[in-house]
């Protein structure tokens, strides 16, 4: 095993996942390619969504890839950071909204 769980150079080896199971990898990468094409949303818009999602799922490979891709596609630093804040707000909100569940439970058991 390598010393670290994450290695930046592994991003370039993503395609190698097909070495162990080619059919599913081919299907995934074909689907992936289709998803990111210009369609009702532009490839540029999708890149910014991907950047936000990358932060939400905290994938360092995705953050590396879509920071580059979004900047290449013309988003500026402030726009990219706002996208990260969207991810942050949704993640934070997802925690906070469970506060209602906590309140419900407390009200249920409290005198």
């Amino acid at each position: 095993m390598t010393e670290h769980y994450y290695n930046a150079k592994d991003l370039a080896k993503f395609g190698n996942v097909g070495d162990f199971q080619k059919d599913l990898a081919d299907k995934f990468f074909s689907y992936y390619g289709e998803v990111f094409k210009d369609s009702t949303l532009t490839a540029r818009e999708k890149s910014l969504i991907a950047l936000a999602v990358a932060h939400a799922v905290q994938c360092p490979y995705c953050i590396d890839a879509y920071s580059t891709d979004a900047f290449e596609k013309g988003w500026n630093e402030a726009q990219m950071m706002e996208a990260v804040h969207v991810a942050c707000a949704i993640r934070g909100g997802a925690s906070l909204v469970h506060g209602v569940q906590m309140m419900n439970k407390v009200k249920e058991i409290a005198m």
Partner: protein
Amino acid sequence: MKSLKAQHSILADSHEQLEIIEHGRTGDFALVPFQQKLEESDLFPLKPAQMEIFQVNIGKMCNQTCRHCHVDAGPDRKEIMTRETMQQCLDVLQRNPQFTTVDITGGAPEMNPDFRWFAGQIADLGRHLIVRCNLTIILANKKYHDLPLFYKQHKMELVSSLPFYTQDRTDRQRGKGVFDDSVKALQKLNEVGYGREGTGLILNLVYNPAGAFLPPSQQALEREYKQALFQQYNIQFNNLLAITNLPISRFLDYLLTSGNYEMYMEKLVNAYNPVAAARVMCRNTISVGWDGFLYDCDFNQMLELKVNCNSTHITNFNMHYLNKRNIVIGQHCYGCTAGAGSSCGGAVA
């Protein structure tokens, strides 16, 4: 900002640049040789196809000092083509009608005192004439204010750098205030008909990445440029040409000082596209330096890699030798074959 030459940078020496491009900073940076990629694509040795573009660099003097400039041009560069060399170019053009397009570049070519004479002579030969105008030159001095009318008079096609449709990215690459001046210049060009539908006056813009990354889709970017420039500034243009930065001169300096050199070169190599390789511009272009020497392209010119045949100068221009030559290649050539490819006319694949 001064040119690398004025700073006495080691990168002002083309041999130093070549050493780094071929072997990396420490001499042990090994990438797949470009020749090997061409061999795998059945393109080695790289040979000329139909030569039709005669590109002339009439000088390194420029009113701007852009951070990515592969020419290392700037106000402190004094190398410019003489009228005698220009006349030799005209003689070659007269004898070789297959060169249907003449592409004048620099520096800011307009700063050469013989630019207007030369351009007028080429127009009289009936060749399609492209001028690589940096836009801000039109506003740089009163003597240049009538350039839009001069371009129009000779129906020149203009190719002008505007690295992005926002001020921030443009000024980062080309210097403070360049975006605002470029917008004003584009409006002046539009006023005389350039870029406007039905006038036949072609105004193409050039996108260069403002950093260590590759251009996005030329087509998608053109749509965004057109929308943004029209909505915000009422500017119109014909086509957007997306050009990859080659690891040469000031862009090489940027890559090295920012620590991006190895990553960028790997990116170029990984993005090698054989379709783009078959369509590289050096196959249909001959590039003439300010001092009359001949090169396969403007990039080889800046690396002082002269054509590999017995016709190395405009004074002994020989079409037979040039057609038979092997094009000189190096690791920098990956810049023209990455992704959708890159040429002075934008993407090629």
